[in-house]
């Protein structure tokens, strides 16, 4: 095929293809290994140290799995009283990646890798990032506003965190015999 013909074909194709859709499809749908590494580096700042390195890493992994399970355009809970149809938005992953890149850049501008910054420097960077993303409170669950706020919510809104906070085996979201709810929950600490 002549080069000119190829260019003409490409031009014709460009005229008919839905580029916006292609652009969206071309968006990353998954965390890159580098992004996961950075999120692992940031996680100990926003998750309780009592979790230990293993549970903190596991929480990041579960959060990444959560992003993979995200579905776009799905009807969300309609509510009761004043019902409203709202569908889930686009995957938050592209925004998450951009936010992680921005945090990395901010950390480097402040003097080094995230882990090397002192707590107040990290707090200032996150504070500015959350404000820019419009995060005002702890999200009820990951909502796509900011990756670190969502990771924080992913843990702190969980049944596991509720049990950690109360130091009790409440198991809020677990299927369990009703009789187990009739006694004071056993302490969590000391349980293997």
């Amino acid at each position, binding site marked *: 095929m002549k080069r000119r013909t190829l260019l003409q074909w490409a031009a014709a194709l460009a005229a008919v293809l839905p580029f916006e859709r292609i652009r969206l499809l071309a968006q990353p749908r998954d965390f890159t290994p580098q992004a996961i590494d950075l999120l692992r580096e940031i996680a*100990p*700042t*926003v*998750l*309780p*140290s*009592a979790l230990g390195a293993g549970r903190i890493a596991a929480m990041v992994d579960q959060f990444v799995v*959560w992003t993979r*399970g*995200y*579905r776009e355009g*799905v*009807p*969300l*809970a*309609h509510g*009761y*009283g*004043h*019902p409203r*149809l709202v569908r*889930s938005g686009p995957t938050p992953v592209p925004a998450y990646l951009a936010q992680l890149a921005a945090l990395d850049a901010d950390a480097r501008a402040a003097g080094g890798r995230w882990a090397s910054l002192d*707590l107040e420097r*990290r*707090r200032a960077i*996150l*504070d500015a990032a*959350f404000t820019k993303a419009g*995060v*005002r*409170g*702890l999200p*009820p*669950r990951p909502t796509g506003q900011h990756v670190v*706020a969502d990771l*924080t919510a992913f843990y*702190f*809104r969980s*049944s596991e*965190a*509720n049990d*950690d*906070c*109360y130091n*009790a085996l*409440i*198991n*809020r*979201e677990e*299927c*369990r*015999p*009703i*009789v*187990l*709810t*009739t*006694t*004071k*929950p056993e302490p969590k600490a000391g349980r293997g």
Partner: protein
Amino acid sequence: MPVHETDVCIIGGGITSAMLARKLSELKPGLGIIVVEAGKSIFDVQNRGRYRERAIAYNEHPWPGDFIEDQQADGIISMTMAVGGLALHWGGACNRFSEEDLRLKSMYGLAADWPIEWADMERAYCEAERRLNVSGEPSPHPEDRRSEPYPQRPIPLSYNLQVLKKWAEQSGIKFSPLPMARNLSPFEGRGSCCVYDTCGEVCPTGARYSPDFTFRQLMGPKKIALHDRTLVRRLVPDDTTPTIVAARAVHQDRPDEVVEYRAKTFVVASGYCWSSHLLLLSSSARYPNGLANRSGLVGRYMNGHRFLNATASIDDQTFPGQNMTHSLISREFFRCAPDKPFVRHDTRVWESSAGRDPRLRSPEGKLLLGDELMADWRSRTKGSSVRLRAYVDVHPSADSRLTLDPAKKNRYGDPMPKIEHRFDDQTRAREAATRAHVNAVFDRLAKASNGKIVNRSEGDYLDHPGGGCRMGTDPATSVTDSFGRTHDHENLFVVGAPTTPTGGCTNGTLTFVALTLRAAEKIAAA
């Protein structure tokens, strides 16, 4: 045009439809029964655990496709339109009304009496409780006497509710476990409660009753035919007699093809909104105001109850998350002495984490990170929050209406309903006193355990709505008789919520079911 002929055509596929279909099939085996429902069947109980998980993790609606986007109403409390109706995701509360609800006019000079004797209603309640397998504890008030025990023992109180019961009863007000249609052991093909604690969204085991189970059980042995995704748009009266001869519908997949249902008896079981809507839509030259509407009252006296809320903070320690969908109920204020200012309400107590949830910032605005956030959260979990609510008896005026909104139409061009609730003069006149009374009750409860009320709020809609086709003995002031038979058309019945003259002061579903079961014998004999 496809034509289906049957004995009874039930329009609507919610809880009253399911209960009616089952009872009719028992009363008259072999009776032809077709249930026509606009929404789809979601009969995939095996997926409900997954739906629940995704609802928790992603806030996804746990009943996929349970709505019709262009079949919605202003003033409606739920978008759900599917086989099972709102009872797919009701909480399962099964409280009875009291005799006062049926005698408001004669006891207090308010609103209207219901055309039913209490003893008759009480028997219907017993049947409804049996069929729904209600778990409950007899009320401590002698006026609430029962002619049959509850079919199940009460739902065991969680540790939290035991603490809160002890706390609340220091006020001198007696509380009981909320009666619920929740299996404690397997019953009629449904599992037992595993405290998934999402009764109001989805119950993976089916322990909390939902009508899809009943419909499947009736369809298997062909006791009924269920035509889902089929919207009845009009009821067709006979040209000369005051009877209904057909229901004209359209299937979602064949919008240009009219489907006709011919039956000896038609039952509108479409809930508080769509029942009046269908009657009003079915206007014709002979019935310009719609069917069953000689009184002009179809779509009027739309009712429900207001609700007042508060959060109390107390020193007693609870552990939020044990069984948040269960509650305590007091029927102390179901009665009001006739010589006292009128106020009636139930009183509810739930465990709560309000004000004690994790937060991202300190009150000074400092961003909390990791250990700080956990420490802040822990520091606020000493003691307990308690969620309080009172469902208050309010009475509709004739202008509390469902009307057809010409500005909002579905794909077929039918105007959609618009509901605007209005209170009668007496209700409005006593609003401030009612609010003061309920707040005083909340304050009285809060006194124990160093408690205090930390916030108060009021609902901005009427809960557990009903009305629009109110029952009565006088055709000039009501739409149906006490069995739901319309005064104007001998073979047209309306059942459940639409027939209630007033909305009571506690959850209505058990009452809607009881009224429907009571009507079943007349419908079977029609």
